[in-house]
């Protein structure tokens, strides 16, 4: 393939809120550039994990190389670098943005800009990216492109006069987007002869090639056979293959400054080629790594246990397989008195946690039980020793604790102004500290709060969505640790403490939380032959109690005219239900109980 000059390369990302049409636009761009025929197009080429498609979000980022013949008669290479679209993946977003010179900002002309989008725009501005606004969904009757343009101008301060008005769904004005990319996104710079500096913006494990790193070359040249060094670890490897992504991997003889492509070098684990790291030439290393690398640390932890009859080892194998592609997932074995052998797993956030759980269940067909999510608490013991506690069961007795700290986040909530009251009430309920409120325009505001992360991971997001009919959006980042009066809340079922339900909560919330959990457990645990007391306790003090009444009747009075099938169906349904139970003492607890008790209660 003939090498195209650096000045004809454009590296860009698409920034959009969930549902604002990023994937659809990506599809159209790929179609328009003629790299793929329409028949080859899988709907939404970039989101290729089943789960992503269903949730309409992009979890792992990818890059694709488009060839576009512009109206000026030149052929351009457009490298589209996809970014994940959720608050849990801010760091990964920032690294893929760092690989670009520009970003298309897609805004739904019926919705306007959202908090997460804005957060990502700020990330892009931090990386000095050129922002190309695009107004989408103009085919809808409720589209209000002029207002939305003005909103973007007011909020972000970028000129929207020439913003393409498109409908990605209908393929309307897609060419305008391509032209805008060529025109406004700067060409990459960098010297192909300088020492190698390549940014890893994504990596995944391939069972044939080892880890495949997606890279952006900033300086120098990357070739097969070359010895490379990963700068954060200092480990060296020999390059096996370099290439570019069209609809598939195509190997090339070299990647040069400005290029986006992939490299394989028999790297065994994604942990050794983390996102944000810099690859350089072992024999002619660059002096300085690219800025911005950090090792992402989990913020949310939970226990994952094999369900009744499921094998511990298959859960471990599945987690290992997931981890190969997900450097931010951590896990270690732990045991629970209630649930037996399992794993304590760490995640970037709640969404990440849910995604992992679902993948375990769907892709690995495992039955798992998940315990309540927890954050990391810092505990200073009376002896002066400081502990980091991710599992409430490991909290030392209250008498040995001098003080405790919990993680605090700054949260930005963007909302139509109608819901400000409801949100303030909610945040206050979640121990939020109001910082300030900004009007973005007449009817839209952003609220800034400081809030304990353990409140955010509880049911905050669901509550926010529910109270604002889905209109509010949330973005948060860790601010630091603050001292807090925390207690361990235990749940006893039939007199037995079930460690998997234990939670660390603020002391002012303990009573309410305990009562709410007891009530919910009462609803989700089926009635048994005997009455089952459910108690919430702090230490030895019972703070709430519910009783599940004994089941008095479970009998089918009649088998109609020999219709045994019907009776069996009924029993089989009952049997199916039992399979999803976890035996705790003599009580059968449904797996969902471990999570549903934490879900937002609409009626509260």
């Amino acid at each position, binding site marked *: 393939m003939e090498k195209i000059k650096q000045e004809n390369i454009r590296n860009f990302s698409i920034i959009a809120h969930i549902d604002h049409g990023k994937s659809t636009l990506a599809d159209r761009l790929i179609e328009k550039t003629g790299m793929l025929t329409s028949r080859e197009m899988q709907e939404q080429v970039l989101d290729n994990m089943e789960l992503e498609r269903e949730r309409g979000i992009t979890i792992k980022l990818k890059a694709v190389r488009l060839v576009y013949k512009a109206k000026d008669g030149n052929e351009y290479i457009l490298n589209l670098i996809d970014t994940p679209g959720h608050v849990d993946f801010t760091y990964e977003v920032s690294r893929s943005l760092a690989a670009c010179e520009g970003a298309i900002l897609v805004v739904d002309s019926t919705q306007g800009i959202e908090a997460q989008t804005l957060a990502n725009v700020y990330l892009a501005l931090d990386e000095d990216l050129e922002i190309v606004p695009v107004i989408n969904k103009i085919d809808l009757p409720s589209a209000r492109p002029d207002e939305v343009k003005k909103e973007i101008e007011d909020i972000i301060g970028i000129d929207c006069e020439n913003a393409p008005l498109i409908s990605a769904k209908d393929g309307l004005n897609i060419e305008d987007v391509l032209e805008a990319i060529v025109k406004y996104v700067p060409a990459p710079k960098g010297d192909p002869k300088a020492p190698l500096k390549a940014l890893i913006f994504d990596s995944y494990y391939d069972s044939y090639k080892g880890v495949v790193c997606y890279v952006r070359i900033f300086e120098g040249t990357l070739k097969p056979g070359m010895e490379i060094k990963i700068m954060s670890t200092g480990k060296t490897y020999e390059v096996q293959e370099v290439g570019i992504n069209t609809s598939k991997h195509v190997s090339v003889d070299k990647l040069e400054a400005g290029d986006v492509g992939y490299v394989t070098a028999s790297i065994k684990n994604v942990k050794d080629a983390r996102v944000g790291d810099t690859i350089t030439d072992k024999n002619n290393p660059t002096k300085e790594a690219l800025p911005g690398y950090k090792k992402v640390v989990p913020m949310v932890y939970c226990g994952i246990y094999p369900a009744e009859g499921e094998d511990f080892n298959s859960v471990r194998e599945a987690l290992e397989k997931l981890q190969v592609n997900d450097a931010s997932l951590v896990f270690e074995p732990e045991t629970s008195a209630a649930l037996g052998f399992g794993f304590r797993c760490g995640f970037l956030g709640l969404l990440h946690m849910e995604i992992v759980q679902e993948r375990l269940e769907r892709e690995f067909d495992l039955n798992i039980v998940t315990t309540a999510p927890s954050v990391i608490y810092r505990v200073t013991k009376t002896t002066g020793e400081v502990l980091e506690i991710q599992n409430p069961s490991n909290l030392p007795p209250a008498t040995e604790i001098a003080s405790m700290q919990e993680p605090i986040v700054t949260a930005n909530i963007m909302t139509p102004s109608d819901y400000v009251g409801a949100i303030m009430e909610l945040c206050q309920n979640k121990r939020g500290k109001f910082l300030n409120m900004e009007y973005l325009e007449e009817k839209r505001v952003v609220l800034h709060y400081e809030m304990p992360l353990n409140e955010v991971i509880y049911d905050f997001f669901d509550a926010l969505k529910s109270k604002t009919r889905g209109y509010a959006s949330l973005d948060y980042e860790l601010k630091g640790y603050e001292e807090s009066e925390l207690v361990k809340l235990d749940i006893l079922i039939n007199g037995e403490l079930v460690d998997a339900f234990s939670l660390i909560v603020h002391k002012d919330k303990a009573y309410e939380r305990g009562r709410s959990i007891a009530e919910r457990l009462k609803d989700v645990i089926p009635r048994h*032959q005997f009455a089952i007391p459910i108690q919430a306790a702090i230490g030895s003090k019972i703070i709430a109690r519910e009783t599940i009444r004994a*089941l*008095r*009747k*479970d*009998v*089918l*009075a*009649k*088998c*109609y*005219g*020999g*219709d*045994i*099938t019907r*009776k*069996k169906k*009924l*029993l*089989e349904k*009952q*049997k199916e239900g*039992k399979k999803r139970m976890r035996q705790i003492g003599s009580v059968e607890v449904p797996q969902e109980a471990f999570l549903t008790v934490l879900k937002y209660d609409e009626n509260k």
Partner: protein
Amino acid sequence: MKEISIYIHIPFCIRKCYYCDFTSFSNLNEKIPLYMNSLKTELELYREKLLAYSIKTIFIGGGTPSAIEGRYIYDLLVHLYKNFNLSKDMEITIEVNPGTIDKEKAKIYKEAGINRVSIGVQTFNNRLLKSIGRIHEVEQIYESYKLLRKEKIENINMDLIFGLPNQTLEDVLFSIEEAIRLGVEHISHYSLILEEGTQFYNLNKKGKLNLPDEDEERLMYHKATEYLVEKGYSHYEISNYALPGFECRHNLVYWDLLPYLGIGLGSHSYMENKRFFNTSNILDYIEKLGSKLLPIEGEEIINKSTEIEEYCILGLRKIKGIDKNEFKKRFNVEIEDIYGDVINKHIKNGLIIDDGRSIMLTKKGLDLSNLVEVDFLK
């Protein structure tokens, strides 16, 4: 010769009751002649298979078999007698509802060889009868009963129902008392089931049914049982009671997992290691048989392990339970070898007992039989 039972479904009713989810119609009277003909055709289609058996019981159920003219029943039965092998001492039952039977019908039933009648009484309380959508009044129960006795029907069952909205324990016991006072040989005492799609189901969902609570409902069941047993009726199945020798042989066929052929709309059959059932769409049913095709909608092969499951689940419905020797005879394996754990678990729970000869539900087990039965599913 092997024996078999026949179930015949008559889907017509004067009106649908609020708790009923059987296949039945109250507005399709013009289809009756065609339907009755279709039944004969269906029997014809089974002729070859049926000739390998002799028929030991026939049960004509509904719907309301007594809602149609008596001659249809007569014709159908005579057709059966003429064409198939019959066992000695056949039990031939028809379900009737008070208010749909008169002297002529009773007579023609008797002439047709019917020797057992099951009356859909439900309750001897007019207020309750009305509130559940029955068309008859208490007076007609007595009349129907008298008519049948006059025609020398010597085995009469009454279907009673308890756990109805606004029904009290006194109501329940009064109905039982009345049935006993009249001298019926058999009583089926069913707990109300709220089946999806019925009026009652929908009302209950809206919270508009004043049902007795579980404790009250179980009290009704056990008090009724005590009373019936005291009066000489043996409690032989979860919901059935009979004077000695009057247990319903047809229903025992179901519970003993013996073969039966169901003909008619939505009927179920079990024979030759298969369960199968007919369509519930009357037009389909008539059309299929019009072209001499079996109106079967689905079937399930019953392999040995399924047969064992079903044998236990159904066997436990009988008060005397599962006879261990018979189990061994039928399946060539000890029941403990398959279900030892389950049996022990529920003995511990107090839901079943093992008296050495049989495995049976305890009194508490009768209330919670599903909990036991579900564990017999593999």
